[in-house]
Structure formats: C-alpha cells, structure tokens
C-alpha cells in the first residue's frame, strides 16, 4: 500500500498527463464524427450567433456579385423552363406534379460558417430540420457540387464540404460516360482528384466531369468541374486533376437537393446484398 502511494506521488504528473491526454484522444476519436456529437451541436448554437453576424457583414459586402450571379442563374432557369414546357408531351405527368413525377426537391440556404484551409472542411447552413433539411441531402452552389449534409439540428445543418479528405463521390466524364470516384487530396481548394478511369479511355484537358446519381444523393448530371491535367498513375488507371467549378472561398448561397425516392432505391438495393 505504501509502495503504491509512493508510486502515485512520484508519478502524479505523468498520471494526470495520461488521463487528460486520454480524454482528449477519446474526444477526437468519438467526437469528430459529426453525426454522433451532441455536445458539439449544443456548443455550436452558442458560437453560431457570432458567426451569423460575421456572415451577414460578408454577404452585404458581396451583394453586387451575388446579384449578378443570381440573375445569371435566373436566365438559365427560364431558358430551361421554356424548353421543358414546349417539349412536354400530354402523355406524361407535369413536372410540377409532386406526387408522381418529381424526384428531387430543391431549397436554397445561406452559408453561415465555412472553411477551406483545413484537411477536413465543413460548412454550416442556416436551415435545418424545421425547414425540411435532413442528413444525406446534396448541396450545390450555382456553379457546381459543394457538399453533402451530415448533420442537422432544428434550424441549422452542417455539411461535409467537397474539400474534405473523407468525401467520396461517384462521378463520370460527360464526353464518354466512364465513371470513377472523386476525392480531395487536401492540397489546393481549387482542385480535386478523379480516380478509377481506365487508361484506354481517351480524355482531354477541359473535358467536363459531372455527377452520376448512383449514390442516390446527387441528381445525375450536376457539374463538378473540368479536367485540368492527368497522369498515368500505377495500375491501369489515370490520376486526373479536376478544376472545380465551385469556388469554395466565395460560397454564400447554396441549393440543397433532397431525393424523394432515395429510401425506395436504398431499400431495393439492400434487399439484394
């Protein structure tokens, strides 16, 4: 007993160190998983108040640019709408029919917190469960893909940015339809890496890359970026650098896309595994 007390007295600092370090590592391992962290969510509500104020100011300063972008998007959408109305055949349901035809629902949201300088980047949106946003919805900017919702509280939600080492997305080359896996290598916020395109495929710089929709999160054909350069890596695959269409440093307003048939698709796929 005396020996034990002596031991404790002698190494008390080491013991405190190991204890605190243990707590910290435990927090890292369990708490960084955004879906499970309740503590974090509560604390975020505190700091979000401040972040909102900062974001408001920033948005105000960028108002001109945002306006131009939105009007540009409006023009694009109107054009598309016109085309759709003309080509619509009376045999099919109208696109606005929410029960039978519509697969994707769109809503817009504002970013209140964002980062591009870490290895695992997330951004926070000002809408949550109350506004219909839920986990596993897709987030796009006006230009292209931005991220995926990983956690949502009543009025806020956190999305995993494309600029995150854990982000994976199934994408394809628009020109020939070959698909591969998109990830970010943590280097430059402007570029992502596309793997698993076999070497017999002909690719060129400037080729468009878009989403496939295999994951039932993103709709098909959402723009990701263009091929910037490529090299033949080991194995039979290319390593392609993609210049991202979305500028993550200017992200202000985003669209959130929910897939109404996701549960159905997942259910069917599950029954075969």
């Amino acid at each position, binding site marked *: 007993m005396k020996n034990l007390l002596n031991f404790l007295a002698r190494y008390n*600092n080491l013991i405190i160190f190991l204890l605190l*370090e243990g707590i910290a*590592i435990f927090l890292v391992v369990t708490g960084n998983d955004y879906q499970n962290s309740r*503590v974090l969510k509560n604390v975020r509500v505190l700091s979000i108040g401040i972040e909102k104020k900062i974001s408001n100011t920033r948005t105000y300063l960028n108002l001109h640019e945002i306006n131009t972008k939105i009007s540009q998007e409006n023009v694009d959408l109107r054009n598309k709408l016109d085309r759709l109305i003309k080509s619509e055949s009376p045999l099919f349901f109208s696109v606005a029919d929410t029960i039978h035809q519509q697969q994707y629902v769109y809503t817009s949201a504002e970013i209140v917190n964002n980062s591009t300088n870490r290895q*695992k980047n997330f951004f926070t949106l000002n809408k949550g469960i109350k506004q219909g946003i839920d986990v596993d919805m897709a987030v796009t900017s006006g230009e292209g893909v931005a991220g995926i919702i990983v956690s949502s509280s009543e009025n806020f939600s956190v999305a995993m940015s494309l600029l995150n080492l854990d982000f994976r997305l199934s994408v394809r080359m628009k020109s020939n339809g070959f698909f591969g896996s998109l990830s970010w290598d943590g280097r430059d916020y402007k570029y992502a890496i596309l793997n698993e395109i076999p070497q017999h495929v002909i690719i060129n710089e400037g080729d468009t890359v878009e989403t496939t929709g295999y994951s039932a999160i993103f709709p098909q054909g959402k723009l990701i970026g263009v091929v910037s350069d490529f090299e033949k890596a080991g194995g039979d695959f290319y390593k392609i650098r993609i210049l991202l269409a979305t500028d993550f440093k200017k992200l202000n307003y985003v669209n959130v896309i929910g897939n109404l048939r996701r549960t159905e698709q997942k259910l069917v796929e599950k029954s075969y595994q």
Partner: protein
Amino acid sequence: MINSIIRYTIIFIVLILLQLLLFNNIQFSGFINPYVYIMFILLLPVEISPWLLLIISFFTGLTIDFFIGTPGLHASATVLSGFLRPYVLRLISPRDGYDPGATPSMEIYGFRWFLIYTLFIVLIHHFSLFYLEVFRFTDFLRTFLRVLLSSVFSVTFILLAEYYRRGR
C-alpha cells in the same frame, strides 16, 4: 498573485480572440495554419506546478476546440506541450538556473534563449496537432511541410508579440 491572475486572463482572452478572428482566417493554400494561442502556455511562470500547467493546457486547447468544432484535437496537442514544457525548460536552462518567480521572457533570458524555447514548444504542439488532424501517415512528407511552414509563422508571430510586450 491576484494581479498576475488578471494579467494572464487578459493575455488568454486576447490570444484566443486573435486566433479565432485573425489566424483561423489565414487561408494560404492550406499549407499555412498558424496556431499562436500556444503562446499562452509559453508565458506561464517557470515554477508553476506541473499538474496545474497540465490542467490549464487542457482547458486552453478545449476552448479553441469548442470554437473551431474539433473536440479534443487541440486539447491533446496542448496537453502534450504542457507536459513536455518543464523538460524543455530544464534542457535549455541558463547557467545559474531560473530566478524564483520568473516568467519565461525575452527580456530576462535574451532573444536566443526565447527563440529556442518557442521553437521547441511550437514544434511539439504543431507536430501532434497536424498529424492527429490528418490521422494517417499517407502524405507523410506533405503534412511535415505543413507543420514546418505553419511553425515558422507561429514562431515569428510569437517573437514579434513578445518583442512588443517587452517594449511596453
């Protein structure tokens, strides 16, 4: 005693605010992320008892964690720095030892001593932080480069801040 507690509280708040509002927003191609709040741990008195140092380190890291949203990440790095600080101080102690009640400062122990001291602690902190953040050893060299570049920035800032503190 009360005086120095107030002084350290002010230093703490100023450093945390600087870190959150200024240094977290430096986005330089992802390679340079200075973490200057570690200066708080550098400045604590030489003779502070190790267990108190550890607990202060832990809560300093935790504060940063809460605002950045990375539970435990900074805390683990600061606790390690706090644990190794007494050993670093012993390693580079001046010939006639430290005066009782002294704080590690450039004014008393000179520029060279303070540079070495800062370099040691910042490197320990940044190393554990960046490798724990990435949590894998692929791209080992790139993380290494990030550690070195960020450390250079952090150390430079801390030296400037310390120089300014001395001037007042």
